[in-house]
């Protein structure tokens, strides 16, 4: 257990963005963007400090970073805890948040008159709120605090969905909210049952006392179903495409790349860290079966879309499916007494590369919309002429979604594929390959269409600033080059984690 | 002494409950808003008043007794206001009587 002054950084990672929300609301007017960007800069420094500290302990003691709030240690109090998974997610989210902020600089600029306007205020404050809530999801060590974190995330996401104010986006936002509320209630119900059975909500303590009995099984089932509704795993995905496609580009990027990952991360925590000895292989297979269905259905429906933003939203439905394939792979390896780490690393890489690539794609779609005045896939002529960097970014992000080397998607799928073969579950590998094939079809269509020359005399509707294109390219490049993480000397993923086989080992 | 006080409590509370029952019966059986309001306010005012009076000797401090009386007064007050407003709304046709 390391409780050094650096651990206070965990508190700051959560509260700094929210302090930004408070000051942004208080100062308001035309200064909201300045407050937000300052907070993002400070937040990056905090996350940088955490990563630095984690790398230090990685080569040293190898324990997770912990912070006990108010000096009241669990089970009475609450502790924050960042293991390898948390640190990686903190880093990935910080990168996406800051590049999206760069992109949104112009889109949500203060009004010329200096008067406060609705959309910039809401966008910047909710961007910070999403960041703070996600950081809380990653570092919280308490199931009830995580419930509050989930609600914070929902309340930050809904206004972004409805930012446009049109009827259909309001409808999408209301549907999203109802799904999300049911999801968090089911999660809370599970947490209540666990408290009734074991008298604690602390993740570390629970993992030591939880027994494979009916009560914990019921709690795990309720919590998982609730979280799946929030993550939009097939067949609970129907709220996602209209909600993500109807928002402004920068908001869509936040929702699709980041917000759904919060509840997914919590499923991961529950299955791998809280109750690994309750999980059965058949339950994990069921989860992956839903994931496989999401991959097939999401990709096929994406292929049939006429509009770019909806296509990208359906592609999110499919990519979420991949995130659940790791469950039977990791547990399969652990059951066989083998090292489950590659499957976990593959799943994490998949999440992070999807976050980067999907943010890049939604932002690129936003620039294309600005340039053409529409986003019909059938008519993307001239895009490559007007936005060479953006089309490159689309291609690179697409390559990561498909899984071409050396992208993050490639490394992720490689690790998952070898885990599938090693644990004798080749069928999940086949699903991954089929999904990659379908993805490559629509990525190919988009890129080829946008390479087509424009009619003579065609002028872009709006001139897009260079820095917006560069932000998009930076996101896509990080997704594309993430595969080089394989060369990294330290294995950050396993920081402060007990191997799954050890947790499950004793009956 | 305490026997007498207990008897008083039993008597007053039972009587209060009777008024509540009668008021509820009226609420369910009377034909329109005005007569139903009449039944309801009787239950509130008299029923609750009797229950409060009955419980007074059971309190162990003046402080608690005053709180009980305050509750009664507040219910009386809000009951009077609300029934006025309901009756007005019914007369102007805002709600179906």
């Amino acid at each position: 257990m390391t409780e050094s002054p650096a651990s206070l950084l965990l508190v700051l990672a959560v509260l700094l963005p929210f302090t930004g929300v408070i000051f942004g609301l208080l100062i308001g007017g035309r200064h909201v963007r300045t407050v937000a960007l300052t907070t993002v800069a400070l937040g990056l420094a905090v996350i940088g400090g955490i990563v630095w500290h984690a790398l230090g302990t990685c080569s040293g003691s190898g324990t997770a970073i912990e912070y006990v709030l108010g000096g009241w240690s669990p089970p009475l109090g609450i502790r924050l805890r960042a293991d390898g998974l948390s640190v990686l997610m903190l880093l990935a989210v910080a990168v996406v948040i800051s590049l999206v902020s760069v992109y949104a600089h112009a889109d949500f600029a203060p009004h010329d008159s200096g008067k406060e306007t609705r959309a910039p205020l809401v966008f910047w404050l909710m961007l910070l709120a999403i960041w703070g809530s996600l950081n809380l999801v990653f570092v919280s060590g308490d199931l009830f605090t995580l419930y509050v974190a989930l609600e914070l995330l929902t309340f930050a996401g809904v206004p972004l969905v409805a930012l446009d104010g049109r009827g259909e986006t309001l409808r999408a936002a209301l549907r999203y909210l109802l799904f999300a509320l049911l999801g968090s209630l089911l999660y809370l119900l599970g947490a209540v049952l666990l408290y009734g059975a074991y008298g604690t909500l602390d993740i570390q303590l629970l993992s030591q006392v939880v027994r494979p009995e009916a009560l914990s099984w019921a709690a795990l089932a309720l919590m998982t179903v609730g979280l799946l509704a929030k993550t939009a795993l097939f067949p609970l995905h129907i709220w996602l495409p209209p909600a993500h496609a109807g928002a402004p580009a920068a908001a869509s990027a936040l929702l699709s790349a980041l917000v759904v990952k919060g509840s997914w991360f919590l499923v991961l925590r529950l299955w791998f860290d809280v109750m690994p000895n309750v999980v059965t292989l058949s339950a994990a297979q069921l989860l992956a079966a839903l994931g496989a269905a999401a991959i097939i259905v999401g990709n096929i429906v994406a292929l049939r879309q006429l509009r770019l933003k909806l296509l990208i939203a359906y592609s999110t439905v499919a990519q979420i499916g991949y995130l659940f394939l790791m469950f039977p792979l990791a547990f399969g390896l652990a059951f066989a007494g083998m090292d489950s780490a590659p499957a976990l690393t593959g799943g994490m890489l998949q999440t992070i590369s999807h976050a980067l690539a999907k943010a890049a794609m939604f932002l690129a779609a936003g620039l294309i919309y600005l340039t053409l005045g529409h986003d019909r896939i059938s008519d993307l002529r001239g895009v490559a002429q007007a936005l060479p960097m953006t089309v490159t970014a689309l291609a690179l992000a697409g390559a990561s979604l498909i899984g071409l080397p050396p992208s993050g998607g490639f490394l992720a799928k490689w690790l998952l594929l070898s885990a599938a073969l090693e644990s004798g579950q080749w069928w999940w590998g086949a699903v991954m390959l089929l999904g990659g094939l379908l993805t490559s079809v629509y990525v190919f269509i988009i890129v080829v269409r946008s390479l087509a020359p424009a009619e003579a005399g065609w002028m872009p509707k709006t001139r897009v600033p260079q820095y917006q294109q560069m932000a998009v390219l930076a996101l896509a490049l990080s997704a594309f080059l993430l595969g080089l993480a394989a060369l990294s000397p330290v294995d950050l993923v396993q920081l402060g984690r007990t191997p799954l086989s050890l947790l499950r080992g004793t009956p | 002494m305490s026997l007498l006080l207990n008897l008083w409590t039993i008597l007053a509370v039972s009587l209060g409950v009777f008024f509540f029952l009668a008021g509820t019966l009226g609420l369910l059986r009377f034909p329109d808003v005005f007569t139903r309001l009449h039944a309801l306010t009787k239950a509130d005012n008299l029923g609750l008043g009797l229950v409060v009076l009955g419980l007074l000797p059971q309190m162990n401090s003046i402080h608690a007794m005053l709180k009980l009386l305050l509750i009664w007064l507040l219910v009386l007050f809000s009951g009077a206001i609300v029934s006025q407003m309901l009756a007005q709304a019914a007369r102007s046709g805002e709600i179906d009587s």
Partner: protein
Amino acid sequence: MTPSLALNLALALLLLGMAGWAVLVRSTQAAVIGFMVFGLLLTLAWARLDGLDVALTEAAIGGGLTGFLLLGAAVRLRSVEHRATLQAPGLATRILAALAAGSVTLLLAFAVLTLPSPAPSLAPAVAENIAMTQVGNPVTAVLLAFRALDTLLETLVLVLAMLGIWSLADDRVWGGRPGFAIAHDASGILHYAARILVPIGVVIGGYIFWIGADDPGGKFQGATLLAAMWLLLVLAGLRDAPRVSSQALRLWVVLGPLVFISVGLLGSWLAGSFLGYPQGYAKLMIVTVELALLPSLTLILGLLIMGAPKREIGR
């Protein structure tokens, strides 16, 4: 059957009856009124379960404010009521829904019956540490010392919900006042009621807030009562709803969270831990946080009910 069990049983049956009414009855308004009665009965159930703090919160927020909110919406949506119920699902959906709901109930009932005995409890841990917090009400000690982070985050939830509601305004009226309507009050009776009731309500709200340190009560329950008094003033036309661009309003809204975070940071400096309290200063710091939270919570709870800005500045 003991009288106590009979009372509990009757209460449970009434709860189920009212919840069934609220879920199944045709008219939305009738359903909402059923839900409000349900909320009041739930308050009694809390009292039976020795949760007086929760009972007060449930009465004030669960039954009171939520009921008011839903009833207002039901009245506003009366014109589409018929159309909205036209899309009622078919028998197959109903049977599936009943099966799903029934299996969840059975699962939970099974879980309730298999809860371990003796029950695990943190009450001994609270009893052991409560002296250090210098407050007498254990629930307050949990809310503001042992699990103060949750309470801090909860105020942030309220701020976000308020912002989310504001974000639904039309761009043209941004910064204006919520469209919370002044009630139709021909004879001035509401006006009269507000003048008499508000001072009494404010005193009671303050009292509930103040005793919260040692007895059931506290900032949430007190703030809800104060918010209700504020809503009454606005309804009766004695005060107008505030402009959401008002600097003063925003200052009061963020005061609570801001002081909370500052006290937390002070703790990390003086007591060596964020949201920790140095020996002997716990009560002072807790009361400071609560005092700062009271106006913020009152305003936010009221604003959540008042809804999105509807009227331009100056109108």
